[in-house]
């Protein structure tokens, strides 16, 4: 019986040693370097498969490097970054939206490694366009490597449009409103959104802001050079928004998320959705006949397209920055990007990789992108995190009729002034 406690103690000690050995820092096992990449779970299953393939190809070409991919949904990914960056649990590479409001917080906190030496080593400045490079150099150094350049527009169900007597996609805002009325009169939900994920309905509000205020005032507002309380176009924006949310959105949108609302589009119960170039593959994966789906730019009347950039960053305290940079070089190479844009979207961040063999459905993005002279970004990327939370609160108050649209601008400006 006296031997039993000793056996237990030895076993426990052995288990502890084994466990601690397993917790050794990444890259020490068998001389192989393991880098961790935090990213979003792609909406389309085929996109996830493409990422797996690209990672496998890189590992095959670099047998001394292993890439451990950790994928999460949008909000869980943001939480993971906030709680790990700056700590020993931080990933080597992390995905983030490139806008100053959303991604800038991580840069300001010193979570991103300056990559100037890798830009020189791999000559990346020539690989990416001026627009995407501006998201890298906006903080003064070289933060991040471009990952995607997302364009957002309105997807529409051609069959439902025909049912409502609409023969062509709208080219002006007045035509869009007229189409929404016609769809509603035909008993069809004009447009679907999921309100519990505030960034989904925000796409409508941002597009209306661009429409009512124009490009210059939009930029002045989001950079706080103009007052939300003083610009009359802000009231016009929220008034239009209140009309859309009360008349043309799917009933009960405020209490469902974007996945639940998108199912209305896939099943032909809603005619339109504001989504991005990733949605083409999602449409296919959800069994819609892509020949029945059209795409048009939200008719704001400006020459800008709605969109945003996404970058991959190397953590400031990554133990394997060289391996991480090597992986990002492969990820943005011609070879990987050719596979990437086949499932991810219409445009590669690599200027030498052009869409080839596109389906008619994917090719619908080409004239939209080529016609655009600039980009107006999603406001959750333009505004600070606290301002975004308030922007969404006011958005939802107007959407539910709890706030007069005429008071929305001043309510938001009051918050900005207190910050």
């Amino acid at each position, binding site marked *: 019986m006296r031997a039993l406690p000793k056996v237990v103690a030895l076993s426990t000690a052995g288990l502890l040693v084994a466990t601690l050995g397993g917790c050794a820092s990444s890259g020490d096992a068998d001389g192989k370097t393991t880098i961790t990449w935090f990213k979003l779970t792609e909406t389309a299953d085929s996109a996830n498969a493409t990422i797996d393939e690209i990672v496998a190809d890189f590992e095959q070409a670099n047998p001394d490097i292993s890439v451990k991919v950790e994928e999460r949904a949008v909000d869980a990914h943001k*939480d993971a970054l906030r709680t790990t*960056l700056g700590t020993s649990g931080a990933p080597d590479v992390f995905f983030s939206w490139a806008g100053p409001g959303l991604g800038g917080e991580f840069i300001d*906190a010193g979570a991103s490694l300056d990559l100037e030496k890798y830009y020189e080593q791999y000559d990346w400045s020539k690989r990416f366009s001026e627009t995407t490079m501006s998201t890298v150099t906006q903080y003064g150094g070289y933060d991040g490597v471009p990952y995607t350049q997302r364009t957002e527009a309105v997807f529409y169900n051609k069959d439902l449009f025909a049912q409502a007597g609409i023969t062509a996609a709208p080219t002006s805002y007045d035509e869009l409103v007229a189409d929404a009325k016609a769809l509603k009169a035909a008993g069809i939900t004009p447009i679907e959104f999921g309100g519990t994920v505030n960034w989904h309905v925000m796409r409508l509000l941002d597009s209306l802001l661009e429409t009512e205020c124009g490009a210059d005032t939009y930029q002045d507002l989001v950079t706080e050079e103009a007052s939300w309380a003083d610009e009359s176009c802000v009231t016009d924006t929220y008034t239009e928004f209140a009309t859309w949310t009360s008349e043309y959105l799917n*009933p009960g949108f405020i209490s469902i998320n974007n996945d639940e609302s998108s199912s209305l589009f896939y099943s032909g119960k809603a005619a339109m959705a504001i989504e991005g170039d990733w949605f083409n593959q999602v449409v296919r994966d959800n069994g819609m006949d892509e020949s029945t789906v059209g795409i048009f730019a939200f008719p704001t009347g400006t020459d800008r397209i709605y969109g945003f950039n996404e970058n991959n960053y190397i953590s400031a305290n990554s133990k394997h920055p060289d391996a991480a940079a090597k992986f990002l070089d492969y990820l943005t190479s011609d070879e990987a990007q050719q596979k990437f844009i086949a499932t991810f979207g219409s445009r590669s961040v690599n200027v030498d990789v052009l869409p080839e063999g596109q389906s008619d459905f994917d090719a619908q993005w080409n004239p939209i992108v080529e016609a655009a002279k600039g980009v107006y970004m999603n406001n959750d990327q333009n505004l600070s995190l606290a301002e975004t*939370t308030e922007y969404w609160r006011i958005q939802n108050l107007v959407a539910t009729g*709890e706030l007069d649209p005429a008071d929305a601008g001043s309510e938001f400006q009051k918050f900005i002034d207190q910050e």
Partner: protein
Amino acid sequence: MTSTTAPPRRASRPAVAGRRTRRLARTGFIAALPFLAPALAAYLVFVVGPTVESIRLSFFEWSGFQGAPQEFVGVKNYVRIFTQDPVFWTAFSNTLVWVVLSLFIPLGLGLVLALALNRPLFGRNVFRSMFYIPGVLAPIAIANMWRWMYNPNYGVGVTLAELFNLPWLAEIQWLGDKNLALYSIFAAFVWQIAGTNMVLFLAGLQSVSPEHVEAARLDGANAWQVFWNVTFPALRPTTVVVLVLTIINSIKVFDLIVGMTGGGPAQGTQVLALWSFQQSFTNHEYGMGNAIATVLLVITLLIVVPYMVWTARQEKNS
């Protein structure tokens, strides 16, 4: 010969008893210390330490990142939450509403279920299990389940509306109507927690003396009189436990709100625990988040401590 010397003075019995009690108490405490130490250490490290740190951070501005500086701002965070935060008072009132409702509905329901299932009944154990099972489910799973039940396109209301031709039922926005959403979530909370309260009350009911109940009946007491004068007083210790647990659980409600509405619509179902979390982890305002957490701590202590002191006095007097 009669002895004139006084008998040796003996210490009074209460004084001896007092010294003996203190000696025994010291011996008992010291003897218990090795067994208490690990739990005490864990309590200090994982409860007291973070609480003190949270209160400290409430006087600073900090983004939460390891390398970012913490700037001392005094009571500025408290001034901001009380006078400038557009959501704080909504979260505060929602939390109080939740606590008050919790004191009556899930607690009352748990007691009623316990009384009903304490008597011989066919299938009694099945019923007990049915009512208790929600209490062991993960809160986020409960949130997902009820969110689908309330879905405005595919939910229970919509289905029943189609089945029984009740169009008004399909139009109710259970989680989308700001005036209704909090109570819709509360219904899920009652479903989750009533069974746990039932189990606690069932345990307490086993300590009610059957002889006292029998005696009361023989004296002509009706069911209500037996309950009020015999059963309920005997349940006092259990009621204290259930009440305190209910208050604490309701004050820190989080999972159901996150899972069902995220605090919406338009922060209409926001509660202090979630708002504290969002200020820290979503908005990177750790000072504000911890100030809200400190307010929550003070509210909890203000409610729980006087009640426990009062209850202890009542027990001592009786």
